[in-house]
């Protein structure tokens, strides 16, 4: 060959610095392209929630002789399992970037470091949306009924978005601190799954001992699930269990505020930890 031929002429014109929107779009496009080539990141988080919605919820309903609403209760509860699982599996991409060396190229690019995290977050939100649509679609196909009341569905959407931001922030932070994939995966059950059992996914938090009920009130997942049930099923019992107030919309607003606080805090921490650890 000469496979490497003549070096190109270099002109002196300076490239303009890219806009943040363009950079964010590019970074999200890259992450999406890589994720699409890793089916595990798309399919694995969906398996358990779909199993819950299609098999376990109906079985529990039969075994416990509960009402038809229990299936929808658990179906929404499974969203609370899907989002953390999905976020933490997507967090693996950060470690893969680091191990493969690709992260160094991104760090050398003329874009703010925070955009590297936010680009990944955009993809986490998009994939979460797709997976929740799939999950709800499966549930509806299984004849599980949701009582949607107009604009109330926005509480559900807001809760999904904010919980995803929170969980992805936690996932990025963990990925920045954990050196290897194996160690990261080993921590997923404790961080992404254990809170699910305390947060009112399968039963009300008031059914637990008082101490655990109080712990549940401080979990973002508890607020997210209560909001989701209020938004998608008109069920405010989860909000009552947290706040013990009279007006459902007030309680929903408070839970939304708590969730927004968690989301903001966790994503800011993620950006800070990533920026520091990547250039230590």
């Amino acid at each position, binding site marked *: 060959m000469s496979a*490497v*031929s003549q070096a*190109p002429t270099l002109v002196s014109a300076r*490239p303009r610095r890219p806009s943040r929107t363009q950079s964010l779009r590019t970074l999200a*496009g890259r992450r999406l392209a890589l994720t699409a080539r890793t089916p595990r990141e798309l399919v694995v988080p969906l398996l358990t929630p779909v199993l819950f919605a299609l098999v376990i919820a109906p079985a529990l309903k039969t075994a416990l002789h509960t009402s038809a609403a229990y299936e929808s209760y658990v179906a929404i509860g499974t969203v609370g399992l899907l989002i953390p699982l999905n976020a933490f599996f997507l967090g693996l991409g950060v470690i893969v970037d680091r191990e*493969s060396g690709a992260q160094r*190229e991104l760090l*050398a690019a003329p874009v703010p470091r925070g955009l590297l995290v936010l680009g990944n977050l955009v993809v986490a939100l998009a994939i979460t949306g797709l997976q929740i649509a799939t999950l709800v679609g499966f549930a509806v196909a299984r004849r599980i009924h949701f009582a949607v009341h107009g604009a109330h569905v926005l509480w559900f959407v807001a809760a999904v978005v904010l919980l995803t931001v929170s969980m992805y922030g936690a996932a990025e932070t963990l990925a920045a601190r954990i050196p290897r994939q194996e160690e990261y995966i080993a921590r997923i059950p404790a961080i992404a799954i254990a809170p699910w059992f305390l947060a009112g996914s399968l039963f009300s938090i008031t059914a637990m001992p008082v101490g655990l009920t109080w712990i549940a009130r401080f979990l973002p997942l508890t607020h997210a699930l209560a909001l989701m049930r209020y938004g998608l099923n008109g069920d405010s019992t989860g909000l009552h269990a947290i706040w013990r107030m009279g007006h459902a919309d007030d309680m929903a607003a408070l839970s939304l505020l708590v969730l927004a606080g968690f989301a903001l805090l966790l994503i800011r921490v993620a950006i800070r930890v990533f920026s520091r650890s990547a250039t230590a």
Partner: protein
Amino acid sequence: MIEVDHLTKVYPGGVEAVRGISFTVEPGEVFGLLGPNGAGKSTTIGMLTTTVMPTSGSARLAGHDVATDPLAARSVSSVVFQEPVVDRPLTGRRNLELHASLWRTPRPRLAELAIAFGLEDLLDRPVESYSGGQRRRLEIARALLSEPEVLFLDEPTVGLDPRIRHELLDVIAGLRNRGNLTLLLTTHYLDEAEQLCDRVAIIHRGEIVALDTPAALRASLGDEIVELRVDGDGEHVLTRMREHGVADATAFAVGSTVTVPLVDRGAAITLAEIEVLELPVMGVSTRRPTLDDVYLRLTGGRLAEAA
């Protein structure tokens, strides 16, 4: 174009990778950091590309401080890292497009570089199917996409077979003749430094121990050197030679090899004086000094062995 002032990096745990180095690189110059693995070359590149945070000191690229204005510093520079940094599952084209988009480079340049680097037939294959040399070419082409004012090449030919290595050296040599690109490359290959660099800084244990043109560095050892292979400790033999005025301060010994630069005397006279001393010499040779000799005298270790 590159100004480095007392740049220092201490990693967590107290490892001093770079110890207060200072140098400047003029626009259009090809500057080499020469030293073995672990000398601090890659850490220096890391700090200049803002991927490693300096502990103290400062550095500027085209006037932009890497610590206080990192975005501007990154926008005028590109880097080819020592390790592969491409997204292997993606195609070569997608990798180039991503870089072009992040640096906001016109797409036509992508095609131009693909042809120049012989990549046009590879572009639509996933990078994971590339050979090491093909991947390296892609990385260099990608770094040039943004028309950088400063290009960093961190051990650009490590791990390549000799043919591809020499082809890449030709390309790098070609870059210096075109445009006003400033190149800073690190290497532990002497021939690369001699062939490519206008000036070379020899870096040893995080410090710059010599900085000059390759010719000037070699000239510091004169036009010729005498190399003795002795039976026993070279230092002992060197001491006796110095006592009798056969060797001066520029001479050095490593193991059983004694190297005597001939700065202001001829080889014949020196060899005759050595013979008179009846030293335990097993072999004698004369040759022209190399950068390896310069490195050896400054650091007490042979570059190829240290690398």
